[in-house]
């Protein structure tokens, strides 16, 4: 890949806890990714639209509201509606997500969920490995 990996860091829904999203965004940028941060209080449509328009490789959704099971699938539905390809796009979720819900999110097609305390290095390594892997295989999610 000759271009930088593009990552959208998104806050979706009404919660204002943006410490995690902003710290991760800053570290991803420092790690050499191109990072777009949506700012707060975005609707699923707005996040999906930004992902498609900005032609990102990764959508990282940060949630601390407990609304992940409602909002994350909405974002994914709109990405497809707006012409994005979830077979190639890596979707990750970060924030307060109970263990049972992590499995549910993965069944819905989320690639990975990172809970608080995850070293950011781990997220960086994951993105570096997963983006080319998904691009190559066009793996069905």
């Amino acid at each position, binding site marked *: 890949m000759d271009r930088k990996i593009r990552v959208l860091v998104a806050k979706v829904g009404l919660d*204002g*806890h943006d410490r995690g999203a902003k*710290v991760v965004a800053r570290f991803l940028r420092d790690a050499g990714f191109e990072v777009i941060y949506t700012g*707060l209080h975005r609707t699923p449509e707005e996040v999906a639209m930004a992902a498609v328009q900005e032609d990102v490789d990764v959508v990282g959704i940060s949630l601390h509201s*407990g609304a992940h099971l409602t909002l994350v699938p909405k974002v994914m539905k709109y990405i497809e509606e707006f012409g994005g390809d979830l077979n190639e796009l890596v979707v990750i979720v970060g924030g307060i997500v*109970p263990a*049972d819900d992590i499995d549910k999110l993965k069944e819905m097609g989320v690639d990975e969920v990172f809970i608080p*305390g995850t070293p*950011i290095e781990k997220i960086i390594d994951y993105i570096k490995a997963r983006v080319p892997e998904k691009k190559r295989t066009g793996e069905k999610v």
Partner: protein
Amino acid sequence: MFDEKKLEELKKRREGWEKSCLNPYLEKYGERDEMFETLSGIKVKRVYDPTDVAHLDYMKDLNYPGEYPYTRGVYPTMYRGRLWTMRQFSGFGTAEDTNARWKMLLREGQTGLSTAFDFPTLMGVDSDDPLADGEVGKVGVAIDTLKDFEVLFDGIPLDKVSTSFTINPPAAIILAMYVAIGDLQGVPREQLRGTIQNDMLKEFHAQNTLVLPPEPSVKVITDIFEWGVENVPKFNLISISGYHIREAGSTAVQELAFTIADGMAYVEAAIERGIDIDRLAPQLSFFFNSHNNFFEEIAKFRAARRMWAKIMREEYDAKNPRSWWLKFHTQTAGCSLTAQQPLNNIVRTTIQAMAAVLGGTQSLHTNSFDEAWALPSEEAVRVALRTQQIIAYESGIPDTIDPLAGSYYVEWLTDKMEKLAWKYIEQIRKMGEGSMLRGVLTGIENGFFVKEISRAAAEYQRDVEEGRRTIVGVNKFAIEEDLNIPILKVDEEAQRRQVERLKKIKAERDNDAVREALEWLRSAAESNENVMPPILEAVKAYASVGEIMGVLKEVYGTYRKPIII
């Protein structure tokens, strides 16, 4: 505080100790680290002695509890007279669910209530709003109309239990609902006790529950002050909050400085409105975080009290000693809790709670060990409450007042925190060309607060990532583990039930009365009158939170925060 000659002797004595005792030992064994520092980055010396606090004047800088500048506590007996209020923050699902949890907590010995609202309520949108989808009842209780409040307070006597409401943009509406419930229960308004958070400035710095722009937000808060001093004189009309500033990643010094700065801004807004400062000040309260660095937190609380007393007396010319008191609620640091090895969080919370008690808090929330995963389960919240009760009844900590006073380290650190906080305050005052109110608003506008806090958050994370700061069970002593703690599940049906109740209320209420009240509110807002009376009228007519906030949004506009990473 000490005799000059003795200090000279001591200095010599210390040099002798360094030379003959310390240095040979250091050469042989070294120390764990090159440098030791607090969470705010204050360099901690190897050892403290009287020379570190010699500049302090006991009477002027500490004095006795209940006496200016209140460094040792605002009350002359502190916890020997009455323990702090044990006020666990709680709420989830519908008003019924929360009412049941509250009653459980009161049965278990909690002594005050504290309300967690869901995001739609906090943001002033109704449960049937598309923006609320998936969020109803999730992180707190869903409140749409007075009907929900009637259910929430069913069987809870307002004249016996005080309640705190963590709410900001719709604070006026929630206060009105509380007053309306008091009216229904027949409790005189002048007897009503409780607290609304009502601190929008820190929302712009950190917590981000944003609806109206900054200036109208301060206007509505000032309306609440003006109405509140006349109508509910025992109610805390604001809880000036550093808690969220800290959770967003600030240092303890920033938390202290920005909170005091915000407090000064509110006082200036009230004075500009013509409110008598000595009437308002006793109805101001504060809210701080208690994080892991034990002594820094204790020092922060002591410094805050001393600073506020000086500010109120010397800068704003308050005459009533009660106006000089800084009374505060404390919550242990949610952001310090780990998803990994969650039982360790009980220990963290205990240390933080002890710091709050040693710091002289008036009220305390201890976090539950499972909060990095979900809202607390019943078992987890019981342990959290028991933590407070063990400190209160078994540890002996509350038996003497401010027991760490006179500790060379604690006094030095208290002084240091105060000095560093003043530096920030002067910087903010300069941004406002002498006015703290203008300074804080300017700092919001130009991103000063957000940038300062973000920088501190990133530095903290860098220290954790690179192992300079240890988090037990996360970057050191980690294990492979399966999570086997019970997790509270909020009933997914809560949203449906809540939307149905709202629909029913809207069908049954007197819609003409709602319209009239909302029109009154609109004209009051447009003509810059106090919005509290029409809001109370609207609430009593069962207008919804979304409808009332809707009018304010139309008149005052809405706010979207600039994107700063």
